[in-house]
């Protein structure tokens, strides 16, 4: 099994601006910037958004937040939808190449004793 960053896209935050995801992208970008894990998440922000939009639960939560009047990220995080996004961001932070490298497990591959 080969290990590589979760997508082949260039790193850094290049968020899509399609009509149905632009608002969600903006919300997610704000929440990443306010996250305690932003050091792990910002280098892979494009992947964080791509994966967020492919997940049914997170996409719905982001769209719900995007449809509401703009609020500071910390305030948005307190809603039920915000909690879902926070749980997702935390999951991604601990599954990120940077965190896994810090425990000696990136790149992920089999090791023989």
């Amino acid at each position, binding site marked *: *099994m*080969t*290990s*590589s960053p*979760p*997508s082949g896209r260039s790193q850094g935050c290049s968020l899509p601006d399609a009509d149905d995801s632009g608002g969600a992208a903006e919300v997610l970008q704000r929440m990443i910037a306010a996250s*305690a*894990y932003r050091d792990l998440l910002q280098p892979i922000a494009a*992947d964080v958004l*791509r*994966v967020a939009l*492919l*997940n*049914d*639960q997170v996409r719905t939560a982001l769209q719900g937040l995007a449809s509401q009047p703009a609020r500071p990220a910390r305030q948005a995080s307190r809603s039920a939808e915000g909690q*879902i996004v926070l*749980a*997702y961001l*935390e*999951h*991604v932070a*601990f*599954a*990120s190449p940077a*965190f*896994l490298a*810090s*425990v*000696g*497990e990136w790149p*992920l*591959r*089999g*090791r*023989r*004793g």
Partner: protein
Amino acid sequence: MVEGAVVEGGTSEAESCDVCIVGTGAGGGILAYELARAGLKVVSLEQGSLLREDHFSHIDPYGATKDFGVRAHSRWPSDPHEAFFANRLFAPPEHASARRRPDGFLQYQVFAVGGLQTLWNGVSLRFSAEDMADWSVSYDALERHYTAVEQLIAVCGSRDGLSVLPDGHYSAPMALRPVDRLLSEALGRMGDSKALAIQNRKAILWRQGHAQDCISNGACAFGCPVGAVYNFPRRLLPRIVRLANYRLITQAKVTRLLTTRGGARVEAVAYLDCKSRTEKRLQAKLVVLAAGAVESPRILFNSTSEAHPHGLANRNDQVGRRLQDNPKTVLSTSLWKLWQLGRKGRSYDIGYGDPLLLLAEARLPDGEPFRFIGHDSHLVPSVPYYLSGLQGFPPRLKRQLARVLFHSYVTLGLFCGGDPNPANRVQAGKTCDAFGVPQVEIAYQTAPKTQAKLAAMEHWGRALLRRASATRITGQSSDRGTGIHYAGTTALSFGREQGVVDRNLRCHGLENLFVCDGGVIPRLPEKHLTLTIMALAHRLATYLVDADHAAAKDSGPRSDAVPPPP
């Protein structure tokens, strides 16, 4: 890539064969391989598709290599045990054999070539002579078939000289890891004279210089990315798929079996081409149902006729009875004695995930002893299911804790024998699946004795983990389908009043219909049943080939071979 005679949905031409095998899992795969290699004209019918060879390496790999381990349906929080059951290969309710009920028996099915064995962890244990004492097939009769299958699928393990767990034909196992040694030492400190820790026995290729050798991701049951764990499509199908006498038809859902006027023989198998939704028929001299302990009874129930008003092979109301699964306790924890590994990094091989096998005995409140087995699961938690256990800590501390605890997680699975209660049964249902085919219903009650066994196993497991330096232990116990070792519903028996198939797996009262899956196992011991299904399949294949050769000797060319077995 497997190529050759794999056809989606069949053809419009009328087809016929010597043997039609319904299902491509543990039993169906061995049968197809052995019968096709012996020269019989064999057709395998499989409801699902052939998975791409890179399914578990690129399409849906275990761990964080793809999309941080997040899929469209992922939810938070979760744990590895829940994550296993969220696998999208498990059939959704509208396609399943049985409609699920809240708090009912949960039946898991995989519709793909390889069936449930696609997500098999490879544990390959022989049943003992005592386990089979009341069967119509003895251990001695099955012994050589166990050996043949172990050689065919390559099992690694150690020979331990235990009558309760007969030895087989093994290559060397992988080394134990720190977590296995901790558990093994803890078992020693428990002072339990009936408990043993030995090397697990697994159908896994490793260190044999083969392209499919184990890559040590420890997550066998999530689907092996390289095909190191045995399954039919990766190992045996490529060896027969180009034979002129073998054909695999995928996307072919068997709906019923059609019998001759008097009902003594099956003359054709009716199946639905799942793509075109048209019904097709396959004429077969012999039919083997190897579709699983719920789907095979469903096909029998749906094959009613004037001669068989309650379903095929069901004159004595035995089809579907005695549904069993291994009652299972799953306990997870972090072992603090492994915390230092987080600081130093991992220097050991994760291997195939569960190299340790525990054999133990406990007592019910009335003093009755019962046996159970266990194995641990320890892998790289690149998908951070452990976060649910760190709730409440601030992010900075959570990050530090996650690093320290990272290599310390272990899950212990304990399994005891099933309960062959005739009232626990698969029966004809009132609902239909998404194709309009009648489903079955499952009537199931957990017996008080089973609940007591689960409680005793959980107590024992917690005591073991605590002695191994467990911290917080989470767990759950159930006998309602999550063991995925379904058995008993078309049981082997001496007579038609006690079961469905005879000692040759032929349905009582039907000349040419056989069943070869978990359903034929009348009483499920504590051991995993997969190797026994494969050994029974090998024995059935030998029987059918011998019968074919005998008939050919009597009647000339092989094209008219395979009469009804004697």
